Structure formats: structure tokens, C-alpha cells
């Protein structure tokens, strides 16, 4: 028999926390786009990331 994992999260929470997290997530995305983060991500992603490939 397998052992239980480290962090137990056995019970599914109700719909309210899920809805709240979705609202927070969408809010963070919109604020991030407004503050120019999507453009920063784009700049990083369209160039070869030297650190990621083990050169930088």
C-alpha cells in the first residue's frame, strides 16, 4: 500500500474559493498586461535564453 503524500488536501472546497481564485487570477493577468509585463515576457521568449540552455 502506498504512503500518504506530504501535504494533505483531501477535501474539495466549495465553489466560492474556486470562483474567488479565478477572479483574483484574472485581475492579476489584467493588471500585469496593463503594466507591460506581457511585453517583457515576449521580449524574453523571442530571444534565445542563454541561461535556460546552459550558456549564459
Amino acid at each position, binding site marked *: *500500500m*502506498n*504512503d*500518504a*503524500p*506530504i*501535504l*494533505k*488536501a*483531501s*477535501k*474539495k*472546497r466549495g465553489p466560492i*474559493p*474556486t470562483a474567488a*481564485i*479565478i477572479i*483574483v*487570477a*484574472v*485581475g*492579476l*493577468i*489584467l*493588471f*500585469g*498586461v496593463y*503594466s507591460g*509585463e*506581457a*511585453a*517583457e*515576457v*515576449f521580449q*524574453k*521568449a*523571442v*530571444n*534565445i*535564453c*542563454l*541561461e*535556460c*540552455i*546552459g*550558456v*549564459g
Partner: protein
Amino acid sequence: MKQWKRHMIQAVSALLHNPYLSNFLTGRVHRGKTKHLCVPGLNCYSCPGAAGACPIGSLQAVIGARTKNVSYYVFGTILLFGVLFGRFICGFLCPFGFVQDLLHKIPLSKPSLPKRLDKTLRWGKYFALAAVLILPAVLTDSYGIGAPFFCKYVCPAGTLEGGIPLAIANEAVRGALGLLFSWKMVVLIAVIVGSVLLYRPFCKYLCPLGAIYGLLNRFSVYQMKVDENACVHCGKCEQVCKMGVNVTQDMNSTECIRCDHCKTVCPTHAIKSGFFVKD
């Protein structure tokens, strides 16, 4: 769902993460507008075929930027993926998870780690997550820019999907390889050997993205449930679970990657999974 069907979905997802296959021949990365968007799985944006941005790489890039210490856009995206799907992403969509699944099919002896060691090592992904969130913000150079430490020193997906293909096809990259690349190859080889012997060691012990999605498993719209009236407590689900989840007691465990293996073997069909699963 049968496991071969899951592998088909994983293959399609890997292709959707990396549709620009011709770039593997030219040694260049895709530069289209889709790279504004983060993908759900761990998939290096320096993979020549990648259509989108790696969420962990992007998170570190923004946190490590001179003007910012927090990444609202990337963290919000990861949060949204997590609250919709949980670790279903690990089981069905992540290209590096698929690679590990395939490696584990190599027919060699499959030892299991002592339970105590296994439980201790599983904390590793939370330390990796802390490193992703903190190190690029606090360990900065003289210009105030922090390196993406996880990508730079650990991430084997970057070496496999980006480093090796670019080193083969791009002469400039090949000429710049040095000690860091050698170190990353050591990490990659360790993960490959580990994946042949153990089931998904990177997901269990090191993946910061899996750590976030795991914490959201119990809040996610995608759920798995056990019908307590139908369950005959035969224990088959727990015997078959390669992630070590105590299925009947802890269905929404942070470790469950929603692979459906338990559901397939349940003799009474007591396990249900999907969006909006009824009690």
C-alpha cells in the same frame, strides 16, 4: 481512460506546445506574437519549436527584471491554469511529464525509494518554487537584474528542449558551450536515468510548476471523486498509483497528477473525474 489514450493526448499537447518543427533544422526560436502567452506545461521558450512562453522562465524573467520584483501577469496566468485544471496539466498536458512517462516505459528494474526518503524529497519542489520566487529578486547584479536561477542551474527541460537542439543546429550556440552546459547535462542525465527507474522523479521532487498546481488541486474546477457507496475498499487504486497517492483517503492530494490510472482499475467504477463532477 486507458493509459495509451492519455499518452496520445500528451503527444498532441507536446506538439501544440512546439508546433514550429522546422525551427529545429534552422536552429532559431519562434518569434511570433503567441510568445506573449504562457503555456500551461513546463516547456522551454528557447525550444526551437515552442509557440509560447514557459511559465517558470517568464516568472523568473519578470521577477529578475530591474524594475520589478513581482510578476502579476505570469503568476495570474499560472493561478488561472491551476484553478481550472490543477495537476491535470501534469498528467495530460505537460511535455516534460510526457517525456518522463515514456522513459519510465523502458523495461528495466523499477526500484522504489524508502518511504521516508521519498516523503522528504517531495519537499524539494516547494524549495524550488521558493527559489523561483525569491532568488531572482534578491540576488541581483550591479544593474539590479536577477538571473533565472532555476532555469540556469536546474531545469532539465531547458537543456533537453532548448540547449541540445540549438547546440546541434546553431553553430554560434555550439561555440559558446562551456562548464554551465556540462553541469546542466549532468542534471539532465540524472533526471533521465531517474525517470527510467522511478516514476516521474522531476515532477515529484523538483518541479516548481507542479508544486503550484498541486496546491490548487483541491480548488480546481477539474476534480476527481470517490463514490463512497460504490467503493469496496479493495485497494487496487492505491496499488496502481505511481505517484504514491492514498486515493480513497486523499483524492485531491497535492501529488495526484490526475492520470486516471486509479479510475481505470477500479472494479466498481467508484472513481469519477472531470469538470463539474457530481457527488
